[in-house]
């Protein structure tokens, strides 16, 4: 187990290195001269050359990378040329919103998918199983941005629930109920997609597990149905679920960005899209770096949980 974790940590560091190189190089891939962006099209060539030198762009690229990564490791992601604010502080302000949406949506998705999948698997082809299997297919085929638009139409406009419409984000420190209200629609919209994935994965794995001999064995011990489902069937069936969750959360970030943009919620997604529109390269670079490392970390954590859930994996 320890060896497995150490190996994974080495791999994690390697991946983070590759990500950092990638997001560093991103800036150099952009067409045009960055000094033109900063000084405007009318800048004199001497000034441009001066700035070029000031930014260290005349040095070899690997040196530039080491200077940059050194700063990044100390928490300095640079200062935006556009807004003249620290990239790190901009990210620090926006990130909690993403985390909160993610957290709420995943809690919702797991809290609904697990019990419903358990009941479905107990009676495959029963009314509950049929309803949710068919229903989840339908939900799977509806894109998140449609769901959001429909929810805004019905919940914000028709029902008039406060803080749910576009541009009505309330921060947590301001008013926590308002905050929950303002993040409810994105959380629910993202939870729907996750629910479908988790429900389907867990249901089919549970049905397979329930055919196993050790389940019959558990029955023969005189254990209750409930105990068999939760203590014996759930854990061996949840490996694929956790794997799916790890992958899904990465994808969820992207749909989260769309939702934030639609509802004007000032999270990382919204900030990223505005940064791209304004050619705020450093901010784009910072967000890409933070989000990529975040996805890698989440997957690492899920891998770790999978190992605890199924000790057979790290033994191989």
């Amino acid at each position, binding site marked *: 187990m320890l060896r497995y974790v150490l190996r994974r940590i080495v791999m994690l560091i390697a991946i983070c290195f590759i990500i950092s190189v990638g997001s560093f190089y991103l800036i150099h891939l952009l067409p045009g001269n960055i000094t033109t962006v900063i000084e405007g099209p009318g800048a004199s060539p001497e000034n441009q050359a001066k700035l070029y030198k000031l930014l260290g762009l005349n040095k070899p690229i690997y040196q530039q990378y080491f200077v940059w990564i050194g700063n990044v490791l100390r928490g300095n992601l640079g200062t935006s040329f556009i807004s003249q604010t620290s990239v790190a502080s901009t990210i620090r302000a926006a990130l909690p919103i993403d985390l909160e949406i993610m957290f709420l949506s995943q809690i919702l998705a797991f809290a609904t998918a697990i019990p419903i999948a358990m009941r479905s698997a107990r009676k495959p082809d029963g009314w509950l199983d049929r309803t949710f299997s068919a229903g989840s297919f339908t939900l799977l085929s509806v894109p998140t941005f449609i769901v959001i638009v429909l929810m805004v139409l019905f919940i914000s406009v028709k029902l008039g629930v406060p803080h749910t419409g576009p541009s009505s984000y309330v921060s947590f420190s301001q008013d926590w109920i308002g905050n929950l209200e303002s993040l409810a629609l994105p959380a629910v919209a993202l939870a729907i997609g996750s629910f479908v994935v988790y429900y389907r994965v867990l249901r089919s794995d549970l049905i397979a597990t329930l055919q196993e001999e050790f389940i019959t*064995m*558990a*029955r*023969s011990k005189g254990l*209750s149905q409930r105990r068999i489902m939760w203590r014996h069937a759930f*854990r*061996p069936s949840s490996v694929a679920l956790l794997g799916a969750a790890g992958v899904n959360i990465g994808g969820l970030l992207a749909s989260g960005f769309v939702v934030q943009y639609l509802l004007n919620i000032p999270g990382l997604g919204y900030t990223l899209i505005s940064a791209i529109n304004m050619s705020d390269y450093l901010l784009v670079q910072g967000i890409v770096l933070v989000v990529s490392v975040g996805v890698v970390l989440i997957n690492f954590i899920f891998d770790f949980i999978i190992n605890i859930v*199924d*000790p057979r994996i790290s033994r191989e």
Partner: protein
Amino acid sequence: MSFDNKKLLAVKDLATTFHTAGGDLPAVGGVSFDMESNQTIGIVGESGSGKTVLSRTIMGLQQRTNVTVTGSVLLSGFEMVGASEDEKRERWGTEVAMIFQDPMTSLNPVMKVGKQIDETLRVRLGMSKADAKARAIELLELVGIPSPQYRYDAYPGQLSGGMRQRVVIAISLACSPKLLLADEPTTGLDVTIQAQILNLLEELKERLEMSVILVTHDLGVVATRTSRIIVMYAGRIVEIGSTREVFAHHRMPYTRALLESSPKVSNASHTRLTTIPGRPPNLLKLTQGCSFAPRCSYATEKCHVDRPELEAADEPGHMFACWNPLPKTRRTVKK
């Protein structure tokens, strides 16, 4: 309901039918036998003869869908057929327990073996956590697992097949059942381990005053360890009697074929084993006649159209189902 203290188990006209896409499959068709306390009986037959289904039906463990069970299973006077899951659950583990065939699949792979034992103790006997753990370690010791306090924390994947089967036995013994159904308990194990496990079962049976039903396809296993033998074919009993009588004076040609197809120490080396020609019948296409007739060298016209019922042989309790039984000879069969 008559309650006979001596009768631990009374099975009457027990039939299990699976409703499959291909039609109704009578896996067990009209089985009757009795069993007294502190007895070991053997159920033998080829693969597919209905032994496993029979033992699961006796316990009431069959799946709840697509199966019909008729007849009666009286376990210490309680009717198991048609009993609710709750009623059966009360008896599982305490009255009747089962040892499963394959220890590789019958233990939960992601649960420590100790937990799989003391779970039963806590849920069924209401033991405290500490008591259950102590008892689980005792049970591990009882089934001959070395350094049980360490094995308590092992996952099944960290144990060998023989060890796992010992754990399975420990689980089945946890609530001191009166009847233990051992469904091919050694089939998945090495020959040397097989003997160990069987001797262990025998020893535990004596020590804990249990009754055991030993289900196997291996006549060598039942020869010395059982007092009675039930020979099954195509879901029916074809011969039943005391072990000595069945080995020495069997009347059903199938029993003889089974005996001849198992290796004997007294045979010269490289002796070819006799095989039974053909295969067990497709239970979906059973005929009116004797199921064994197509493979039987004694079969006559009558065998193919009319099924023989069990009839009494010389010794009380010895019965066979055959129109053309083997002659009554006083042969001596080496065990």
